């Protein structure tokens, strides 16, 4: 099988400010300097896995398990400490869909701005502009300022812009970090956008999906990886992994209630 993403022995360490116990002098100096003591945390420890071309892999795990860090390392947003990441194809990392919108600019300007942040040329954005507006059903609002739109309209606009830009870019590999929840908007729009997502997803792309929506993962991914404290707990068929994960959570809950 052709491999789209191959990760071997990947590790990452962060230095973060820690509010740990401090000596009096350092506490005193902290008032002046504002830079606290540093603590090292390791969100990822020796991770290895492969994703085949056209395959979709789900990643689940508790908050802080290292899911987002893993995606950002694959996308090259974070620099890896050690290990290897091999990518075959055009890769797109997608986190929040509301990125880059400026409330004081008009809808039209915002579409062009976000489009160019995605790296599309003006020509290409012009080509998809009408589709974006139509999909978000904002035909009468193209010259309104974004802050004047209702919350639902805003999320429709940002979703529509992002999804059409992604479609235009046409990546082979997509890393999706909690973007499948669909955002706000009414039921009609939700249905429309989940169809659009399916359309893009089912066009033979390689997918890595991070989500807390276990049912979404089960629906979309054949294989799932469960991360816990920076290590792979289990990787395999989605049903089995999700089952094991749910049992694990139950156990923790039971422990706590004792």
């Amino acid at each position, binding site marked *: 099988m052709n491999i789209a993403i191959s990760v071997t022995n990947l590790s990452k360490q962060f230095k973060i400010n820690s509010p740990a116990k401090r000596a009096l002098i350092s506490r005193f100096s902290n008032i002046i300097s504002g830079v606290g003591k540093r603590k090292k945390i390791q969100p990822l420890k020796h991770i290895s896995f492969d994703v085949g071309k056209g395959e979709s892999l789900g990643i689940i795990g508790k908050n802080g398990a290292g899911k987002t860090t893993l995606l950002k390392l694959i996308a090259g*947003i*974070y620099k890896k400490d050690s290990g290897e990441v091999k990518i075959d194809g055009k890769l797109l990392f997608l*986190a929040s869909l509301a990125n*880059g919108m*400026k409330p004081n*600019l008009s809808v039209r*300007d915002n579409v062009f701005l976000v489009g*160019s*942040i995605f790296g599309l*040329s003006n020509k290409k954005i012009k080509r998809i502009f009408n589709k974006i507006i139509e999909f978000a059903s904002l035909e009468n609002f193209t010259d309104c300022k974004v802050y004047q739109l209702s919350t639902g309209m805003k999320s429709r606009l940002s979703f529509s812009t992002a999804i059409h830009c992604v479609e235009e870019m046409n990546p082979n590999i997509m890393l999706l970090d909690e973007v499948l929840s669909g955002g706000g908007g009414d039921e009609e729009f939700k249905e429309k956008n989940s169809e659009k997502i399916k359309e893009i997803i089912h066009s033979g792309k390689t997918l890595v999906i991070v989500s807390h929506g276990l049912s979404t993962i089960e629906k979309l991914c054949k294989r799932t990886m469960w991360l816990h404290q920076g290590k792979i707990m289990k990787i395999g068929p989605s049903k089995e992994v999700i089952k094991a994960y749910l049992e694990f959570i139950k156990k923790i809950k039971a422990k706590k209630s004792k």
Partner: protein
Amino acid sequence: MKKILQTSFALAKAGFKLKNEGNYLGLLWYVIDPLMLFMIFVLVRGVLGKGIEYYPIYLFLGLIIFNFFRKATGSAINSMSSNSGLITNMQIRQETFILSSYFQSAFAHIFEVLIVVVLLIVFKLPLWYLLFYVFIFFVFSLFVLGISFIISTIAVYVKDLLNIWGTFTRFLWFATPIFYSARLELPFDFNKYNPMYHFIKMSRDVIIYHQMPEYWMMIASVTISVLMFFIGFFIFNKAKPYFAEKL
């Protein structure tokens, strides 16, 4: 490369539009600020501008060249932290934001140069010497971009620089002969080591006095600007993979 330019141009355009959004005077604000300062100094010219030929143009050129430097570097130094959302969540080249702050300041500079044109017409000076300014501005841009790369890198690690830079540029503003004569006797020859002085001096020589700048000055500024640009670019490129986790 083309992609970076396109994106940074679009960001600059958005920033430009945002700045004037909802203002009654709109675009005029770009020139009102230097014009006000200009007025003040023209009013007190008797004290400061004694014996300077074409003092208003002399003054205004100094003001806008320094203004460009201050604006471009000032917004570049902030550009990493103010765009942290994009840097940490999208695959976007970090250089984009440096370039977009440069473009934004360069747009504004064009408006200011238009006033220079007006002044030149008022004083009945020929306009075509302004063409040489295009070359000077190009070299100056390399210098400004180099500085922008360096300070924006440092500012990611040492946030204090944001405060220091403002004070530093204010100090530099007074230390550079913008509103007073360059021939003023100073305790030591600071001008010699002040790149801003050289860029301003060259521009004035060419545009107002129609003199070829001294050769050593031209060679020195081109060398320093190119060096600064590549050093800055090198430092920025070394550091940028770590930006996302530091912001």
